[in-house]
């Protein structure tokens, strides 16, 4: 029974190993390429004053929170989809109400401008 997942994992692992193998392939570096100057980040000719790794302001952060809440609910929808045809109109109405509730959340977020870059 678990053989299906064993197949998925094996396939993914083999592909990952191949790609990682290509990604670590390195030609014998030219001695001159060991220079510090070759390692500067690409900025089109200028030198950075600070590291790129700093507090990064993701301008869409309220949207990610809306997504997290929305996506929780999606977990109910998968089993719902499986029994939908059996239950018929009841399931349709049921999910309609559920989605309408969540749409209110998205509508509110949109109205407050939370889907824009802050």
């Amino acid at each position, binding site marked *: 029974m678990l053989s299906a997942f064993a197949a998925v994992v094996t396939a993914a692992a083999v592909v990952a190993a191949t790609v990682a193998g290509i990604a670590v392939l390195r030609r014998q570096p*030219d001695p001159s*390429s060991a220079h510090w100057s070759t390692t500067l980040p690409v900025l089109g*000719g200028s030198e950075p004053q600070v590291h*790129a790794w700093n507090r990064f302001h993701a301008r869409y952060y309220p949207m990610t929170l809306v997504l997290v809440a929305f996506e929780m609910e999606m977990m109910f929808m998968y089993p719902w989809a499986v029994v939908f045809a059996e239950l018929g109109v009841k399931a349709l109405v049921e999910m309609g109400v559920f989605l309408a509730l969540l749409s209110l959340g998205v509508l509110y977020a949109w109205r407050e401008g939370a889907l824009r870059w802050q």
Partner: protein
Amino acid sequence: MLTDLLPRLARHAPVPVCLARGLAATGVTTRLRADPDVRLVASPRQATVLVIAGAVPRAARDAVLRVHDQVPAPRGVAVVGDQSLVEWLDLGDVPVLPADDPVPGLRRLHEQLLAGAGGSPSRGPADNPVEWSGVGPHGQGGEGMMGGKPYGRPMAMPPQEGRDGLALDRLPLVFGPFLPALPAAVQLEVGLQGDVLEEVRVVPLDLDAGVVGSSRPLSSAAGRYLAAVAELCAVAGLDALACRAARVALDPAPEALADLRRRLRRRGGLRQATDGVGRLPDGRDATDRWHRWLDLAAAAAAGEHAGHDRVDPRELGPALVGLELGHALVTLSSLRLELEDAVAAPLGAGA
């Protein structure tokens, strides 16, 4: 066997070229863009050959050498124009390619590299010249997590106002002058918070010290407009259309020009990338600007000379504040001609 096969196969690939363009390099840029045997790449990391073209401001010497070093070694270097660039940059034995037919020389250089030639040695310092300061082994530490200069660079600091966690670090960065989206001889100095510009200055390079190299713009006025459209297409991710536009720019025959205009003006084409982007105080967005270029190209091809405005880069800064970095770069790209002419004005030559 494999070691033999790889270079043989690789030779069929187009030459990935990183272009460091000075002023009035439209001729070379467009020829390289139009040739399927060459691929103008976005980043020096993706190139085998660095091409230096046009009239490069003396102030950009360090920048050229930094881009030079960022091309992975073994790297090829070629200069388009004249020997003065080679001497100024002290590049040693570097081919000077003719501006009207640069591709065969590039191809030769590329194949020599694949065959195992050494390429141009790195020019920058071998070690980080920035002082590592702090108490730890990597120059870190001293005063809490933000102290010291880890790996030679200080931590970015949040802007002065506010401390309640939402005023996040502002990265002081200078982009250019050799970023593909930027017009020649222009740098973008920004305070970047996330991907939004909180602080912008568009700074033309200082031309007081003069320029090196010869300027070889396209001979036809229509060609210049189309070349700018081609560059904008490339920035918007439409490299194939950019190639087509560049070919028309080299030979702006009326039918070809009309066909290109039809293709570009379709809804959902290039407009997807430019509609509503970079609206300046005059009310025009990027789409209006390249539409105007197309109109001017058509007019020039018909023998009329309407000419375009100049935009002073220094006045552009406030209009870009608050834009996303990509928007800002597309905006600058949609002002390529206007900005380049304003920058080159002190030189007296209509670039």
